[in-house]
């Protein structure tokens, strides 16, 4: 009898491997969001009252914070997608680790910048 190994979870994670895992997870999160979004919009079919009701439910602080997360997830998926395109068409494989860190810090900076209007809305940073 021979011992066969499958997916190797003990393999040391590399930058490219982590980038790939995050891309899959962010993709799944976006799929989930898309479903949720269609569900919310579909309330329009049932008239204004139904839509206003679901919007009031979504206007809570929890969903505002989740929206900041959604913004970060979109940014990562887009910027890492551009990184993958550069690997595909511009020889980016030779500097893919640098590309990942550029994408990573852009995600951090843009998520924080993008969070400011959300936080204003929550009266955390002031505003009306």
């Amino acid at each position, binding site marked *: 009898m021979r011992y066969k190994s499958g997916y*190797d979870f003990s*393999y040391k994670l590399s930058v490219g491997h982590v980038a790939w895992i995050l891309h899959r997870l962010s993709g799944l999160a976006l799929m989930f969001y898309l479903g949720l979004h269609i569900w919310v919009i579909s309330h329009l079919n049932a008239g204004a009252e139904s839509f206003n009701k679901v919007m009031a439910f979504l206007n809570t602080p929890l969903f505002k914070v989740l929206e900041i997360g959604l913004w970060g997830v979109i940014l990562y998926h887009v910027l890492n997608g551009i990184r993958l395109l550069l690997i595909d068409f511009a020889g980016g494989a030779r500097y893919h680790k640098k590309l990942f860190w550029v994408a990573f810090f852009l995600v951090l900076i843009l998520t924080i910048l993008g969070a400011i209007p959300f936080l204003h809305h929550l009266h955390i940073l002031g505003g009306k």
Partner: protein
Amino acid sequence: MKKTLEVFRYNPEKDEKPYFQTYEVEVYEGMTLLDALNYIRWELDGTLTYRRSCRSAICGSCAMKINGKTYLACKTQIIRDIKSDHIKVEPLPGYEIIKDLVVDMDNFFDKLHRVKPYHITHTPPPEKERLQSPEEFHYINEAADCILCGACVSACPSAWAGKDYLGPAALLKAYKFCADSRDEGADERLAIVNDRNGVWRCHYTANCMDACPKDIKITDYIARLRNMLVQDKL
């Protein structure tokens, strides 16, 4: 200075399950992991089984998983390259294990043969030989360095998950011949790699490039193969 080697052991004729055995080895500056394995086999435990031959990173026999990453044992210096005092040595992941650190490479070479790793020509041979200029060689120089150790395939998550995936080594070889100015079989070969188990199964985790002991930018060559496939269709 002593280091501890935790070595994967499995003898299918005797053991029900694989286990790890630890050995203490006195290490010195310049000693390679292969030297340490030789010391274990020759001085401590003659039953330890592993592949080795050239001990100078040319034959590609001694690829194994060293502290969680695949690389050649003979190209890993035990003090300079491994900071930890504890070294875990395992066989290449993704292959069937024959005994201890020896894996069955049949699957690896079968895939290599599938991409037709030889010159295909349709024109009659010239009087002496098919010449290649240094500029033409430049395109395949790096890709031709492959020593077929299998470390890249073992490092690839796509290869672990899909056992029919051609894998980085075979795709690199396909590129090498497709980009060779003397070869005329690129269309045949591209038709083989243009498959869900060919170039399109690579997800650019680029583990293969980290694992390659010859420092070949394999992921870049897989991308170039994809470009060869799509350049006429965009």
